[in-house]
């Protein structure tokens, strides 16, 4: 945190200099995300899974589906929990151990973006009201770090859920039994897409890579649903946005999200 190497300084100056000319270090347009590669079904033993590569950021995501007790006062809906972890092999600076505030924020923002969109209709995951429900546990593990984990984990989660199969369970007399070999698709209502933007100087850039991430002033993640509405926002970073920039970011998120949504839906079907 303390030491800025000379190389870091040079990179930063380069990024700022290029942005003044409307250019980015890797040649992308300001509102252009990196190449997105999505493979689903990579962990056959999990009920759903995906490996996502967003530029050089890579995430492996697995979904476990298990019967569980509902939360108190939420007896009429299934459980949906999404986590994220940066594996120590993903980054020389990552360390094993309990998650820091950065990773906790990452996991909560990814979870909230999908949850608030209502992507999965949790009311269809009740086995017996107040007694037993289906739980969907989505774990994201970052295996290679190159910035913007918010979107990479969000895309991996959404693709995993789309490709997921829900086992059939029977509930009788307090006992849940799994019906071997019978599966249904998850009850999907919409496909949420998060788009993270960084602010460097007065420029808004989409999907910052690690070098851009390290020198941006502030960031904002906006998640939109299939109807083109905004369903979750998280601002971060040590500076602020003008109200006009916030409106601009909303528009970028809707436009960029629409393209990525098509890729996620295609990957989820495969």
């Amino acid at each position, binding site marked *: 945190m303390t030491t800025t190497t000379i190389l870091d300084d040079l990179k930063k100056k380069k990024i700022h200099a290029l942005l003044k000319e409307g250019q980015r270090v890797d040649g992308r347009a300001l509102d252009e995300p990196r190449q997105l590669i999505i493979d689903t079904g990579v962990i056959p033993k999990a009920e759903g899974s995906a490996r996502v590569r967003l530029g050089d950021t890579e995430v492996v995501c697995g979904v476990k589906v298990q019967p569980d007790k509902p939360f108190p006062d939420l007896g009429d809906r299934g459980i949906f929990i999404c986590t994220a972890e940066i594996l120590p092999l993903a980054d020389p600076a990552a360390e094993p151990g309990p998650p820091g505030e950065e990773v906790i924020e990452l996991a909560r923002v990814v979870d909230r973006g999908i949850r608030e*969109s209502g992507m999965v209709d949790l009311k269809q995951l009740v086995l017996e009201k107040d007694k037993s429900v289906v739980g969907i546990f989505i774990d994201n593990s970052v295996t290679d770090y190159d910035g913007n984990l918010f979107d990479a984990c969000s895309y991996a989660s959404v693709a995993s859920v789309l490709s997921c199969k829900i086992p059939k369970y029977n509930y009788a007399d307090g006992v849940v039994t799994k019906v071997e070999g019978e599966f249904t698709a998850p009850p999907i209502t919409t496909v949420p897409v998060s788009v993270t933007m960084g602010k460097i100087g007065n420029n808004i850039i989409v999907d910052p890579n690690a070098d851009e991430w390290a020198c941006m002033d502030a960031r*904002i993640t906006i998640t939109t649903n299939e109807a083109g*509405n*905004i369903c979750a926002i998280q*601002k971060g970073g*040590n500076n602020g*946005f003008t109200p006009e920039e*916030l409106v601009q970011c909303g528009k970028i998120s809707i436009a960029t999200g629409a393209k990525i949504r098509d890729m996620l839906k295609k990957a989820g079907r495969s």
Partner: protein
Amino acid sequence: MGVKKTDIVLLDDKGIRCDGRKINEPRRIMIKAGVLKNANGSAYIEFGENKILAGVFGPRDVHPKHLANTDRGILRCRYHMQPFSVGERKNPAPSRREIEISKVIKEALEPAVMLENFPRTVVDVFIEILQADGGSRCAALDAAAVALADAGIPMRDMVSACAAGKVADTIVLDINNEEDQEGQADMPVAYMPNLGKVTLIQLDGVLSPQEYEKCVNTALEGCKIVYEVQKKALQEKFFGDSQ
């Protein structure tokens, strides 16, 4: 959003909300600066049913030392709920929610604090939620910003926070607890009123692009109301002005 089912009327046909407020009317806000003896700066806020205490220490030495920054000070922030602050007793250990809120509050305050003036030191902001209501993170931010000023920490601007949201298909200012539970969207916003920058924005719930823009502007109006209350609290502390 909207988990429990009740018969509550969130907005009646005269535009009056469940607690009697109008659409653009915030709850009662009371701030008192300088309420603690040991902290370098402090503030107490009542914002609706929220009762929150904020204390600031610093700039002071960093422990452990390797966390210190040679070219600027660091800001640390802890948002913490008392066990008795909510309906069911809360475990006093910090939850993941409290850790995330601590982080977004820190990042909302940081643009206003002139940390470049205090290399190698830390400013600690401790926020204790004595009683929680809807909008506690905004109220906490409002108290913390006053406590920073009370501690004499040089600031570029005040930070003033207020939420807006969507209730009964209408954009309203300053969501209370029932509106948060039953409503359609909640958007906390923090704003530096003189520099014109939004330093915190979050959203839970669904808004159309038009509603989004209106919601931001509504929240900013709330921030400006809060700003006046913050200034008054500091004036009362330092110049003994009564209301």
